[in-house]
């Protein structure tokens, strides 16, 4: 099959490279394999980072009816290079009263987990950098470390804006981590595995020959996907949930006292976080690297993956260009009063769907459950009332 | 599914503990939460209940005090299940009817537990324990949260029922010393085989148990505590008293008196039927003469229980006993138990709503409500029509079957008892006329109609009434096997 050759081209390349080491000891082979994976992932995503950073500015520009960067290189495509150079040669300022060690470690702690998290996502058929049994768990386990990093940044700077920003960030990240994880649970339940590869595998095939079996096409999956995506927005501190770095209130939140390359690292971590969450969303709900229609399978799997990823990233940017920032208490209330119950509902709906043998009746039932809870919640929460004046609980 | 019944009994007790310790405002929520769980358990019980199998099911048996023959035996047959379901239905309804504090909720939950126990226990000691356990919370609830005259009514209620209980306990001790067992099934077998006791002792024992149960039902002329108690009790308690507690008496008759003393009952048959007829006719007449709405409903409650009694006595007291008629009467009685539970509770609920709005509940204190609160009036009339036995609502089928059975078995008594149907109708129509129609009275002109929360309570209950009235098979399924078995037992 010709398609397979292109599809597996990267995998074969890696095997070919490793074949030079057949005589080396076992551990050396493993190290080499890992290094190759890491190098590939880093290379791809660094490029993507550069690309997205400029594309984001251009898309935002279009949304706001202006051009965006268009001076450096063709269509302004070399802008990130220029930015990088600028950041590298800037002075690295460390405040006098800062906790130096913590201040220094924070950006590293921030970037490392996001890069680690990228390792477990299957980018294509047989293309998972770090295929472990509990990949999903791994993703969240390392992901949860970023909160600590934010805290370190906030504390280490010894600046009240930083501290406030860090507190806000931690509060909202902790709150939204729960819906984020709980919305993953239905998928894990249905597939019966924590391994991303198995999850993607389970979404393969086509119902009645053409309809893809992606989970997003089930009612619970759609609901969970939306919840997951919103939580993902919060986790990566993107608009409309970017209160931690709300420049109009607290300068730049926990990043206030950072400059130069450390700042760039934060920036990179944010984008990598975005990639990781979007990648996981693609894996969990959008069928991973599967093609949407059977006859489109000739296009290699990784292309599909990156197409979907790109689409999600575009939505990220789109939302940033469209929605205003939410107030911090609304963000928190939304998590506990709406996201959590809905997330639990997804579990219930998925269970019903599963026990109705994945059939049409299950589909309708789960739709019913999701809808009932959604309508009930929206009735109960009465958004209009929630938009009334805020009472300040902790400010005295 | 062993342990289900025990869980059902214990959960409300745990709930009482929680509710008793909670903050005042939360107690009702906690009580409702526990009721939701017990309701789930009750439904589970229903689903696990094999409707085709005769006899006790889901039995749990542990040694308790072997020295006095006390044993922990709980199990359900159709009748028990029916009553358990009824209890699970009425209690949330009662809790929803009124917002009260923690003491109230805790006592109600204790009562609930006791009721579950009473309806599932099959050993006299255990049964009696639960039977009495329900009495004390009821007393306290009336005494503390009652309306006017609560002290008097509560004391009367307590002494009356307690005296009955004491008599019953003594009788049972007598039986125990004679036969050496407290187990219902064993006693029923003995009663079937021959007289339990000899001579006057038998009559004494019979009289004791009869007194205890007749007071509880209540049967004329042991009913005078009831109007006072129901009138003064808070609405939720009234609902439970009439909806469930009064069923304990009927249940006792079915479970204890009839199987144990078939001989005595047959001899006394005409008299007992006479008492039942008096219950029906006098109570409905008295209801007609009441000027207090709640008291009227209370009297009609006596009247409706009288139907149950006439059905039961007709089954056991008559000489010729065709199976069809016995089954009809028993089915009717069981259905009536359930129906009356719902309907009377609903009526008390509505009375409570009116009282909440007006502060008074005399029939003359209202007028022309239909113009102001059409929904309240409409739904309330449904309950009233259900209570007066309008077909297509739940009251009819039960009464029809009771009368069908008892007419064939005891025609004369039934002929008089049917008058009760007429007087009930008169009483209700009079109430409706005074409350709903005519010009809108000044004092009622600011009444709110049914609030949304109230609608959420009213609508399901009313739908249930319609469901039973139109497609009652699901209830019959519960107790049909039991009915057949009992008819065989009494034949």
């Amino acid at each position, binding site marked *: 099959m010709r398609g397979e050759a292109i599809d597996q081209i990267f995998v074969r390349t890696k095997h070919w490279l490793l074949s030079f080491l057949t005589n080396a000891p076992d551990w050396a082979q493993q190290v080499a394999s890992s290094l190759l994976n890491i190098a590939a992932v880093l290379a791809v995503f660094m490029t993507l980072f550069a690309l997205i950073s400029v594309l984001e500015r251009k898309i935002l520009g279009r949304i706001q009816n202006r051009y965006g960067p268009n001076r450096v290189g063709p269509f302004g495509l070399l802008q990130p290079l220029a930015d990088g150079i600028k950041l590298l040669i800037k002075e690295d300022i460390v405040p006098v009263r800062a906790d130096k060690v913590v201040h220094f470690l924070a950006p590293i702690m921030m970037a490392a987990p996001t890069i680690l998290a990228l390792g477990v996502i299957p980018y294509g058929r047989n293309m998972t950098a770090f295929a472990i049994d509990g990949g999903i*768990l791994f993703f969240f386990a390392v992901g949860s470390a970023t909160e600590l990093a934010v805290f370190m940044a906030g504390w280490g700077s010894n600046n009240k804006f930083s501290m406030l920003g860090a507190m806000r960030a931690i509060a909202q990240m902790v709150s939204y981590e729960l819906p984020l994880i709980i919305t993953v649970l239905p998928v894990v339940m249905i597939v019966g595995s924590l391994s991303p590869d198995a999850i993607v595998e389970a979404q393969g095939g086509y119902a009645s020959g053409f309809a893809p079996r992606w989970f997003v096409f089930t009612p619970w999956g759609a609901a969970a996907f939306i919840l997951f995506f919103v939580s993902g927005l919060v986790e990566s501190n993107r608009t409309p949930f970017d209160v931690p770095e709300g420049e109009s209130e607290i300068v730049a939140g926990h990043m206030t006292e950072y400059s130069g390359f450390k700042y760039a690292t934060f920036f990179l971590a944010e984008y990598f976080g975005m990639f990781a969450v979007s990648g996981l969303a693609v894996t969990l709900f959008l069928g991973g690297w599967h093609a949407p229609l059977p006859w489109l399978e000739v296009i290699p799997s990784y292309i599909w993956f990156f197409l979907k990823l790109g689409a999600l990233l575009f939505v990220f940017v789109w939302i940033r260009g469209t929605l205003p920032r939410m107030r911090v208490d609304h963000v928190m209330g939304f998590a506990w009063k709406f996201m959590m119950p809905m997330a639990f509902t997804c579990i219930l709906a998925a269970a019903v769907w599963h026990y109705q043998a994945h059939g049409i009746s299950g589909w309708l039932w789960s739709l019913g459950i999701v809808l009932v809870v959604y309508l009930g919640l929206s009735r109960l929460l009465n958004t209009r009332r929630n938009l009334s004046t805020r009472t300040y609980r902790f400010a005295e | 599914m062993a342990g289900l019944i025990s869980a059902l009994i214990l959960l409300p007790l745990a709930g009482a503990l929680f509710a008793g310790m909670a903050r005042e405002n939360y107690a009702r929520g906690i009580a409702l939460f526990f009721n939701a769980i017990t309701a789930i358990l009750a439904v589970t019980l229903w689903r696990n209940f094999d409707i085709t199998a005769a006899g006790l099911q889901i039995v749990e048996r542990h040694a308790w005090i072997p020295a006095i023959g006390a044993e922990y035996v709980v199990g359900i047959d159709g009748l028990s299940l029916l009553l358990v379901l009824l209890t699970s239905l009425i209690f949330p309804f009662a809790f929803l009817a009124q917002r009260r504090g923690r003491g109230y909720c805790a006592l109600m939950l204790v009562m609930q537990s006791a009721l579950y126990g009473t309806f599932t226990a099959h050993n006299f000691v255990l049964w009696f324990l639960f039977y009495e356990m329900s009495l004390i919370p009821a007393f306290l609830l009336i005494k503390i949260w009652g309306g006017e005259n609560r002290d008097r009514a509560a004391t009367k209620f307590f002494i009356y029922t307690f005296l009955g209980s004491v008599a019953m306990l003594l009788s049972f001790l007598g039986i125990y010393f004679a036969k050496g067992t407290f187990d219902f099934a064993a006693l029923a077998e003995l009663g079937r085989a021959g007289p339990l006791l000899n001579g006057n002792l038998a009559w004494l024992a019979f009289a004791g148990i009869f007194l205890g149960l007749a007071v509880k039902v209540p049967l004329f002329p042991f009913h005078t505590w009831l109007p006072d108690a129901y009138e003064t009790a808070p609405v939720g308690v009234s609902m439970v008293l009439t909806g469930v507690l009064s069923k304990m008496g009927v249940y006792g008759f079915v479970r204890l008196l009839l199987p144990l003393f078939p001989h005595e009952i047959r001899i006394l048959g005409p008299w007992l039927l006479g008492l039942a007829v008096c219950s029906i006719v006098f109570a409905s007449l008295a209801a007609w003469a009441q000027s207090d709405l709640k008291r009227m409903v209370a009297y009609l409650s006596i009247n409706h229980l009288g139907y149950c009694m006439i059905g039961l006595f007709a089954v056991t007291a008559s000489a010729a006993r065709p199976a069809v008629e016995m089954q009809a009467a028993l089915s009717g009685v069981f259905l009536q138990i359930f129906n009356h539970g719902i309907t009377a509770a609903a009526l008390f609920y509505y009375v409570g709503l009116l009282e909440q709005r007006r502060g008074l509940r005399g029939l003359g204190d209202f007028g022309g409500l239909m113009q102001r609160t059409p929904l309240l009036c409409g739904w309330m009339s449904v309950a009233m029509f259900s209570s007066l036995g309008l077909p297509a609502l739940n009251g009819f089928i039960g009464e029809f079957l009771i009368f069908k059975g008892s007419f064939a078995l005891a025609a004369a008594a039934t002929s008089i008892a049917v008058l009760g149907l007429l007087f009930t109708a008169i009483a209700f129509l009079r109430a409706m006329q005074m409350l709903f129609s005519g010009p809108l009275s000044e004092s009622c002109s600011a009444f709110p109609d049914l609030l949304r929360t109230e609608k959420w309570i009213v609508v399901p209950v009313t739908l249930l009434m319609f469901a039973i009235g139109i497609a009652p098979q699901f209830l019959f399924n519960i107790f049909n096997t039991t009915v057949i078995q009992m008819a065989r037992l009494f034949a």
Partner: protein
Amino acid sequence: MSASAFVVIAIVTVAGALAAACLRKLIHAALCLVVAFLGIAAFYFLLGAEFVGLVQVFVYVGAVAVLIVFTILLTRREDEDDVGFNWGGVIVALAVFGVLSWAILKTTSLSIAPPAIEALTVKRIGQILMTDYIWPLQCVGVLLTAALIGALVLVMEEKR
């Protein structure tokens, strides 16, 4: 299970733990605690309990550590970092360590090599959790809920 890995992890873990217990600045101690926890997670990996290792990272680093630092933040006072040290505790701890290690070393049956086992998959853990350990699991669920509510009630502002 390589010895070199063990040595490295052990050193990192114990050092992290010691730092966590002894550092003056509370915040540094908390961060070192994270290091110690990561070390323990690494031990789990080494012992073949990957799932537990991931859970360890997830819960301790993601939740417990964050909780602790958050609390530090909420209860920050200028004089809190140095509020004295109880040397009696050190003696007790050392004594306990001495006796424990003495006892461990004395017990010769403990110096065994690990048997070869097949990997413990997440699926198997899940199955066992949902069958043999279903009641404990439920209880833990209730416990966590209770803890959540309890914690909320504790930190709720008192009514004025």
